[in-house]
C-alpha cells in the first residue's frame, strides 16, 4: 500500500455554467498535516465535499488510501474522519448520544473508545448535556471527537478552529500533531486564516478562485518571506534623511522596514554608526499573513 492517505488529481467541479474548481491536485501523505488555505469562496469546502463524495466530481479523481472515492465509496470512506463546514450534530441529543450513533456504524468502536475520545477532546464534564446547550467551541470539539472516533487514517477538517478560544486551538493543535506523529494519520485542514495554521501544519496548500497557487512545506514558505520589522528610534528625522527608500513611517518615532531576518544586525549596525538611538526592534507577527494576502489578494468572488 502506498503512503498516500489522499490523492486528488486534476479535480474539476462545475455547478451550472460556473466552474468552481479548475484542476485541483493535492496530496496528503500519512503523518502530514496539510493546511488548505484560501479566502472565502476560493473552493476549499467544495474540494472537501468532492473528496468526501458529498458532491459529484465533474472531472478528475480522488483516491483515499488507494481507493477511488467514486467507484469504491464505502472502502474509501471507511477510514476517513471529517468535519464539513459546521460540526452539524443532532442538537436534541446529548454529546454522548451523538457519538453513540456514530459508533454504531463502525464495528471497531466500543464504549471505551468513546470515553477515550471524549477525554481526548476535553469534553468529559459536559458529554451528557444536550448539544443544543453547547457553545460553538464545545460543538467544534465534539465535531473533532466524532471525526476521530473510528481511528481514521485520513482526517479532513473544514475550518475546525472556528469559534475556538486560543486554549481550544492549542489543545486541538496538540491533538492533531500527536495523531499525525504517533498514529501516522494524514490530516487535511482548511482555513482562511494562515496565522492560525502556521504552527501546526507542516505543509501549506493555497487555493484561489478554484486554482492551487502554491503548495509547499511551511518552512520553505516562511523562508521566502521578507519579514517586516518595526524599529523605534529617538530621532526619526535623521533616519528619514539617511534612508530615503524602503521604509514606512508609522508615527513620530517608529518606522517599518521589510528585510530578511539575517539582515537585522546590519541595519542595527548602520543605524548605530549613524548615531541614531535605537529603543526597540520588533518583528511584525502578521508577516506570514501578509505574504498570503499578497498571494491570494484579489480573489474575486464571482
Amino acid at each position: 500500500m502506498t503512503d498516500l492517505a489522499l490523492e486528488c488529481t486534476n479535480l474539476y467541479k462545475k455547478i451550472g455554467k460556473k466552474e468552481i474548481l479548475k484542476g485541483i491536485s493535492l496530496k496528503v501523505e500519512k503523518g502530514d498535516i496539510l493546511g488548505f488555505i484560501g479566502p472565502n469562496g476560493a473552493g476549499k469546502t467544495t474540494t472537501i465535499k468532492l473528496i468526501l463524495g458529498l458532491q459529484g466530481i465533474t472531472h478528475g479523481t480522488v483516491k483515499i488510501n488507494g481507493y477511488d472515492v467514486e467507484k469504491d465509496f464505502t472502502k474509501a470512506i471507511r477510514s476517513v474522519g471529517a468535519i464539513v463546514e459546521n460540526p452539524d450534530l443532532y442538537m436534541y441529543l446529548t454529546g454522548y448520544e451523538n457519538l453513540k450513533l456514530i459508533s454504531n456504524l463502525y464495528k471497531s468502536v466500543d464504549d471505551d473508545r468513546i470515553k477515550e475520545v471524549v477525554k481526548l477532546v476535553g469534553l468529559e464534564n459536559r458529554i451528557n448535556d444536550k448539544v443544543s446547550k453547547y457553545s460553538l467551541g464545545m460543538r467544534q470539539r465534539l465535531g473533532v471527537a466524532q471525526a476521530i472516533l473510528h481511528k481514521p487514517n485520513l482526517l479532513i477538517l473544514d475550518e475546525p478552529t472556528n469559534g475556538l478560544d486560543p486554549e481550544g486551538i492549542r489543545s486541538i493543535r496538540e491533538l492533531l500533531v500527536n495523531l499525525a506523529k504517533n498514529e501516522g494519520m494524514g490530516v487535511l485542514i482548511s482555513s482562511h486564516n494562515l496565522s492560525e495554521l502556521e504552527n501546526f501544519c507542516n505543509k501549506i496548500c493555497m487555493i484561489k478562485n478554484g486554482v492551487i497557487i502554491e503548495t509547499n512545506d511551511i518552512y520553505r514558505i516562511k523562508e521566502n518571506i521578507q519579514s517586516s520589522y518595526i524599529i523605534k528610534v529617538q530621532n526619526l528625522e535623521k533616519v528619514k534623511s539617511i534612508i530615503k527608500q524602503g521604509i514606512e513611517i508609522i508615527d513620530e518615532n517608529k518606522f517599518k522596514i521589510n528585510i530578511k531576518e539575517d539582515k537585522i544586525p546590519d541595519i542595527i549596525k548602520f543605524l548605530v554608526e549613524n548615531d541614531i538611538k535605537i529603543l526597540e526592534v520588533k518583528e511584525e507577527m502578521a508577516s506570514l499573513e501578509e505574504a498570503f494576502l499578497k498571494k491570494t489578494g484579489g480573489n474575486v468572488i464571482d
Partner: protein
Amino acid sequence: MIKLIENEFTKIFKKKSIWIVGILIILFIVGLNVISKIVSERSTDFLYYSEDYVQYLKEDLEKLDAKDPSDYAQYIETKTNLDVAQLCLKYDEQWQNSIIEKYIKSTITEYNQYYYSIEEKSQDDIQKEKELKEQYDEQIAKLDAKDWRYFAEKEKAEKEKEIRNIEEQLNNTVSNTEKDQLNMIIEQRKVELQAVDWRLDKDIPYGNNHLSNQIENYVSSKIYLITVQFDENEYLDKQNRQSYIEEAELAKYDIENLENTQKKDSAKGILEDVFSNYELLIIVVIVMIAGVMVSEEFNKGTIKLLLVRPYSRNKILLAKFVTSMLMILVTVVFIIGVQFITGGIVYGFDSYGIPVSAYDFNNETVVTMNVFVYLIIITLTKIPIYILIATLSFALSTLCNNSPVAIALPLLGYMGSSMINMLAVQYELNWLKFFVTPNWDLTQYLFGKLPMFENSTLLFSIVVCLIYMVIMLIPTFIVFKKKNIKNI
C-alpha cells in the same frame, strides 16, 4: 443496515416532538372515549311533545265551542291532541310515547267523541263511553306498570289481523299490479310480525336497548329492501342493496342469539372501529414522521455526517424508508393499545370477550371472530393506505427537501381521496380504477362484498398499489444517490 435502522429509531424516539405527539394522541383518545360514553348515557329518547305545544293546543281549544256543530270535529281533534300530548309528557321514555300514539290515542279519540257528543246521549252511548273509559284506564295501568308484553301482544294481534284482511283482499283482486302491491304490503307486515314475535319470544322490551334497536334496524332495512326497486344491472344499486342485506342480517344475528356484536357504545365497539375513528390521526402521525425523515437531516446539515460513513447512499435511504414503514406499524399498534386500555377503563374490559360479527356474502352467513383476530385482518387490509401515503411523504421529503410540502401534500391527498373515489363511483369514471385511491383500501374485498369497481379484484388492487409505490420510490432513490450536498 440493521445498525442504520436502529440509529434512525434512536433519532426518532429521542425527539421531544414524538413524545408530545404521543401524549396528544392519548389525550385525544381518552377525550373521545369519555365524550362518547357521556353521550351514550344521556337519554337519547326523543320526546314527542313539548310544554309549549300543550299551551298552544289549550289556547286553540278555548276558541272552539264543543256545542257548535261546525266546530265539533275540530274540537274533538284538538282535545284529543291535547290529551295525548299531556299524557305523553307524563312519560319520559320514548317507547311509552310511541305506544300512547299507537294504541291509546285511538281510545282517547273515541272516548272524546262520545263524551262531547252534541246529540242527546242514548243509553248505549253512555254504556260505550263507560267501556272506553275502562279500556283507557287499563291501558294506562299497563303503561304505568311498563307491561310492554301487553302492547306487544296487541301489536301482534293487529298485524295478524291486517295480514288476514289483505290476504282476503288479494283473493278478490284480478289486476296484477294491484296483486303485486298487496303482496308487498303483506311482506312488510310479515317483517313487522316477525319483529313482534322476536320481542315476545326473546323477551326484548320496547325502548332504548341494544336488541330493541336491532329489531328496529332489522325492520327498517328489510322494509327498505322490500319497497325499493333495485335495478340488477346497476352496480350502485347492487352495492346499495348489499349494505341493507348486511345490516338486516347482522341485526338478525344479534336478535336471534341475544348477542351484542353490533353494539357500538362499548369498549369493544370502539376498538373494532379503531381505523375509522382514528384514521386521520394515524395518517397525520405517519406523515409527520416520514415527511421529515430526509429533509430534516438536509436542512440541519446532519446529513453530511451520515453520508461520510461506510454505507452506500442507497443503503442509507433504504434504512430510512424501512424505518418509516416500521413506524406505521408502531403508530397503529400504539393507537390500538391506547384505545384498548382507555376503552377498558371507561367502559369496562368485559366487552372484549364479545365477538365481532360480519356478514359473509359468499356463504350468506354471519361469521364471528375474536376482536383481535378482526383487528389483525383490518390492519392488514388498511395498511396499504398508510404505506402509500407514508411513501409519498417520504419521496417528497427526499425530492423537495422541504418538510412542510412533504407533510401537507400527502395530507391533502388523503383528504381528497374520498372525493376522488366518490366522483369515480358517482360518474362511473372507469379509468379511475387504475388510480391509486380506489385501490388502496383492501377492506372492500373482505367477506365477499362488492368492491368499489365492478370486476376489480384483490390482486388487481395490490398490483396497482405496488406499481404506484415503485413509481414513487425509483426517482427518490436515483435523486438521493446523485444529490449534491450543497453548502449551507
